[in-house]
Structure formats: structure tokens, C-alpha cells
């Protein structure tokens, strides 16, 4: 993140990640919010309901009986032209699973915060990225924030990205359960006037509007020809591709407004002179950077590529950074059964055969991985490659010893 003089007047606040997301929703002047409480997401919608009650946000809050209904509600609201928001986590997200596909393929602009959390069994409320990554084929744009400031920025920019006429796809903003959602950090918040100038109200007619007394249209009906299905998927793919450009533009403007410049799809830390590359996403990227600083002090030439958006998949960025590296080590806090780490699986195909590769499965179910542990894992990988030449390990299970 390079700094420049921001145009906006900003106020420094200290907020937990969930409240930072609520703050962004307030500034975006969302019209409709619907959600069902699920840990660790609950603070977001509790705070929004307080804002509505105090008159700080003029929005309708719809209480529903399940996450399926929560997403169905905001989907309907967005199809009717409203700016809408919901939030969920883990099992709640999976309860919405069918609606995820309906919202994306119907091309309604929507923003949803996903506070990442492991899925049971065993019952577990701690952090893991498997839930948000299970959305990746549905057609949502998916980002993962690294800290509270980024959770705020990603939420605010999500509305602009989602509503862009070249995109028209819903956006999921991921933040690590408890690690970001319940941890207070200082962040800079722009004023309402500056946000208003940058993010005007949604144009309710784009992509279409369903309204009482309006033109009679049906949506999601049986098409006359099954080929329409394929045509729509191709349109979705084209929108995903143009989203790469739109995300870059939106962050460019946002950087001018706030002085905070992001990647935008990826960010590389100490990469320009690196011979090895670690890859990660989400909050623990900070710990990995810390480990990389220590390894650098010991003479190891390694950098960290942080994935900010998993969808659209930043293939070109990743290939560009991999080019010329001796080894790539990917950290996954998620697991695709029968396959391995999800990021490792996606990135593996971009790594040439003569480059070392290791996919590390760690932190599943939320156990902490310290900077020292990251350092040891990365050092072993680099040492092994230097010693033995090519190393190709698709799945390395990092599981610390437990006291019984």
C-alpha cells in the first residue's frame, strides 16, 4: 500500500472488523438489509439494526427465519432496484447455497459480507476459508480482506464494482472470523459527503427493474431454448473478465479519494527481487509477511503474493509473479476433500514443471499458526529445493502436536 495525499477528510476510529463493515454499509446508504444471526457475523447486522433504529441509516431491515430467506429477500429487493446488503458465515452461507446461484445468474447487484468460519462436524466457530471458497463457482465476485481497514474499504468498493454496468454480479467480502470480525483496529473512515460524491445512489433501472405496475416481465422462467443457459454463462464469464478492469478502476479512484491504494486483485510483498514466492489470502497474510521479514534477515530471498480477489481469478497477475521464481509455496486455510488446498489447486496449474511447488494445509478449524511456524515451513521448503533441486508436493498437512 503506497500512500498519497487523500482528497477526503477522514476520521480515525477504532472498530472491530464486523463494525467496520457495518460502517461501510451505512456510508453506502443501503436501502434494504436482511440477515439471520450467525456467529461470527452477528455483530455486523446487530450494529446495522442499531444504526437504523437511531436514524443514522434510512433503510428497511427485514428479519427473516433463515439465511435462505435473507438472501432471497435482498435478491428480490435488488431485482426491484434497491441497494441491498446481507451478511453471513459458515453454515448460514451453506443454507443460502441455492440462492447464491440465483442471485449471481440473475445478475442483480448485491453485496454480502462473509465472515469466514469452519464447517462442522466437529462443531467449530473458528476461522477457516472453506466456506467462502465453496462460493467460487457460483458467479459471485469474491474478495478476502487482510485487516479491518481493508474489510471496510472492500465493502464500500464492493457496491461500486457490483453495480457497474460492465459487471452486474454480486460481490462477497470475506473477513476472517474472530481474527478480523472481533478484533478492534484503528481505521480511517471518509466522510458521508465524500462517499456520496464517489458512490451515487444505485441506478434502479440497471440491469432491469421489476416494479408493480411496470412492464410485465418474468425472470428465471423456463427459456424457450435450453441453449440460453449456455449463453448466459458465457455472458457471466465475460463480465468476470471485465470485472478485473472495473476493480482496478474502482480502486484507482478510491485510492485518490482515501490515499489507500491496493493491488487491486493481488498484492506482492517483497517480491521484486525474490526467488521464492509464498501465496496466501486473508488475515494471516500479515503473519506470513512478518515471517518473510525474518527470513529476509537470515538471507532467504522470498516474498508474499497475497490474493485479494479469488474471483475473478487473477490468473495473469499470478503467472506474472511466478515467472522466474524457483519455488512457490501456497498456504491454504481450507480443504477441498479429495483434492487438497483450494488455492494450491488453482495455482498449481500456473506453475511450470521446472519450478518447485508446495501446497500447505494449515490453520484448518482455526488453530493459530504463528510467524515462527510459517517461517519454519517456508525455510524447510526453500532449503529442500536448494538441496535436492525440484520439489513437488501438492499436499503438506501442517498439524501441530496436541496435548491429550
Amino acid at each position, binding site marked *: 500500500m503506497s500512500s498519497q495525499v487523500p482528497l477526503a477528510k477522514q476520521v480515525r476510529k477504532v472498530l472491530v472488523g464486523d463494525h467496520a463493515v457495518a460502517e461501510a454499509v451505512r456510508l453506502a446508504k443501503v436501502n434494504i438489509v436482511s440477515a439471520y444471526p450467525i456467529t461470527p457475523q452477528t455483530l455486523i447486522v446487530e450494529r446495522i439494526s442499531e444504526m437504523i433504529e437511531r436514524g443514522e441509516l434510512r433503510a428497511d431491515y427485514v428479519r427473516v427465519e433463515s439465511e435462505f430467506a435473507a438472501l432471497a429477500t435482498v435478491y428480490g429487493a435488488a431485482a426491484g432496484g434497491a441497494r441491498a446488503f446481507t451478511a453471513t458465515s459458515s453454515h448460514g452461507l451453506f443454507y443460502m447455497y441455492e440462492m447464491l446461484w440465483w442471485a449471481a445468474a440473475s445478475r442483480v447487484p448485491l453485496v454480502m459480507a462473509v465472515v469466514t468460519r469452519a464447517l462442522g462436524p466437529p462443531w467449530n466457530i473458528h476461522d477457516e476459508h472453506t466456506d467462502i471458497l465453496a462460493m467460487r463457482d457460483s458467479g459471485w465476485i469474491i474478495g478476502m480482506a487482510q485487516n479491518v481497514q481493508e474489510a471496510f474499504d472492500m465493502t464500500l468498493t464492493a457496491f461500486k464494482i457490483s453495480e457497474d454496468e*460492465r459487471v452486474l454480479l454480486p460481490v462477497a467480502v470475506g473477513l476472517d472470523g474472530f481474527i478480523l470480525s472481533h478484533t478492534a483496529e484503528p481505521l480511517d473512515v471518509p466522510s458521508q459527503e465524500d462517499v456520496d460524491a464517489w458512490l451515487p445512489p444505485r441506478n434502479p433501472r440497471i440491469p432491469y427493474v421489476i416494479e408493480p405496475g411496470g412492464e410485465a416481465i418474468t425472470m428465471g422462467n423456463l427459456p424457450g431454448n435450453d441453449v440460453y443457459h449456455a449463453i448466459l454463462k458465457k455472458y457471466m464469464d465475460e463480465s468476470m473478465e471485465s470485472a478485473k478492469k472495473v476493480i482496478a478502476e474502482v480502486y484507482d479512484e478510491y485510492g485518490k479519494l482515501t490515499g489507500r491504494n491496493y493491488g487491486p486483485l493481488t498484492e506482492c510483498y517483497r517480491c521484486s527481487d525474490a526467488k521464492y514466492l509464498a501465496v496466501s489470502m486473508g488475515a494471516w497474510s500479515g503473519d506470513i509477511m512478518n515471517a518473510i521479514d525474518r527470513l529476509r534477515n537470515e538471507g532467504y530471498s522470498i516474498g508474499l503474493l497475497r490474493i485479494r480477489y479469488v474471483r475473478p481469478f487473477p490468473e495473469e497477475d499470478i503467472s506474472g509473479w511466478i515467472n522466474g521464481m524457483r519455488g512457490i509455496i501456497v498456504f491454504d486455510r481450507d480443504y477441498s476433500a479429495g483434492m487438497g488446498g483450494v488455492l494450491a489447486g488453482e495455482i498449481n496449474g500456473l506453475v511450470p514443471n521446472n519450478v518447485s511447488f508446495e501446497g500447505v494445509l494449515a490453520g484448518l478449524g482455526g488453530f493459530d499458526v504463528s510467524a515462527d511456524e510459517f517461517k519454519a515451513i517456508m525455510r524447510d521448503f526453500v532449503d529442500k529445493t536448494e538441496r535436492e533441486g525440484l520439489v513437488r508436493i501438492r499436499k503438506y498437512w501442517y498439524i501441530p502436536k496436541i496435548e491429550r
Partner: protein
Amino acid sequence: MSVAERIRGSLLSKPAEGAGGRTGTWRVYRPIVNYSKCTKCGICWLYCPENVIDWLEDKSVRINYDYCKGCGICADVCPVKAIDMVKEGVV
């Protein structure tokens, strides 16, 4: 053509009768209106999720069996119980 226009052109359709919505042989129950009881209130017309009940000039109702899926909502909402759901093939 903008993305929005393309979506409008392919995702949305105008409500009309089409082969896609035609009931095949799978309807189990058929709604039969008992016109001697019917008060012509039009509530069945309002509630039919398939929009297959016509409410004619004289306010009488006609069910289009080509498209009726036999869900029974009309029979359920009729305030005077003028619609019976009868097993297909019986009438």
C-alpha cells in the same frame, strides 16, 4: 450492446403461453369450478401462481387446463369453496 442490455434480452422474458410451461401428463389433481356456488369474486384469478385463470368480462372464471399445474391454491383461497380438486382421469 451493454451488458445490461444483453442481460435484459436473454434473462428476462415476457409472460406468455409457451411450450415450456405447458402441463404434460403429470398433473395429479384438476381444479373444477362449481359455477352454481361461484360468486365471481376473482380471488382465484388473483392467487393462481401460474396466471392460468381468466377472469372474463362477465366476471366468471375459466381455468386453462393446458397450463394449470394442479397446485390447488385456487381451491384453497376460494372463500365459498367453489373449487374442488378432482383426481385426474376421474372427471
